């Protein structure tokens, strides 16, 4: 990664952190949901800079689109202000510090960013990149991996997501109908 990309990424990460802190400090939940929209836009920018274009694509659809709507639906069912509960800052800080340290420790075993010797680039990835065009005939490698090499896996995944979607729709749509019915009669 050259210096320009590095700088862009660093600035985007600073924005990301600032947004996260602002979300945590806001009392108004609607404003928080709006800031989460900005958060996912920013993280998509980070993904693009990190070359994870397909992840950025997903973030666009899920983070900026559906997640915001889901959060707003939840707020509509509950309330716009969140109750301030007494928190013990020291204990929370300790917990966050321990979990954060464990996560950072975990990254020590990971290959360096962009390392050509990384295990992920050693086994099937090479073949996918070099031969998927001839074998499958789809120009986008990610698509041929997801829909062909790993087709059954994707089918199962999609089935799970579809079921979850129906479940969410039943929960949200059903309760809204119950709530508006008495209002119509009055």
């Amino acid at each position, binding site marked *: 990664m050259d210096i320009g990309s590095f700088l862009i990424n660093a600035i985007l990460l600073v924005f990301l952190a600032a947004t996260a802190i602002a979300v945590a400090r806001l009392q108004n939940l609607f404003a928080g949901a709006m800031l989460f929209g900005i958060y996912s836009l920013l993280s998509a920018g980070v993904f*693009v800079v990190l070359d994870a*274009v397909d992840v950025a694509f997903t973030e666009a659809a899920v983070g900026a689109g559906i997640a915001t709507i889901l959060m707003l639906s939840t707020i509509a069912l509950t309330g716009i202000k969140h109750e301030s509960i007494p928190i013990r800052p020291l204990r929370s800080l300790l917990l966050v510090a321990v979990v954060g340290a464990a996560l950072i420790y975990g990254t020590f075993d990971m290959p360096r960013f962009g390392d050509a010797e990384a295990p992920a680039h050693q086994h099937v990835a090479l073949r996918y990149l070099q031969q998927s065009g001839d074998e499958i005939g789809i120009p986008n490698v990610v698509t041929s991996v997801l829909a062909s090499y790993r087709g059954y896996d994707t089918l199962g995944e999609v089935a799970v997501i579809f079921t979850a979607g129906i479940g969410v729709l039943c929960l949200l749509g059903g309760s809204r109908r119950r709530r508006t019915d008495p209002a119509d009669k009055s």
Partner: protein
Amino acid sequence: MYIAGIAAVLVTMALTLARAFMGPTVYDRILAVNSFGTKTVLIIALYGYFTGRPDFLDIALVYALINFIGTIAVLKFFEYGDLGRDRPSQPDDI
């Protein structure tokens, strides 16, 4: 030269973020998010050219669409949903 454009967009992102943090009304925040979406489209397009791979434009295209749909959905929700019926537009206390 692309880096100058990217820098301009990043500076504007910071300004928009400040507006989103300050509010004071809900509409200011929605405006800031909508405006932020346009800037994301710009920065993705510019970055694609900066690294010499204009294929990134596909994502910029998707963002241009989703941003609009998102804003309209939020507004529709805000106007017809249960949100903010008690205090629709007063500066939301932070």
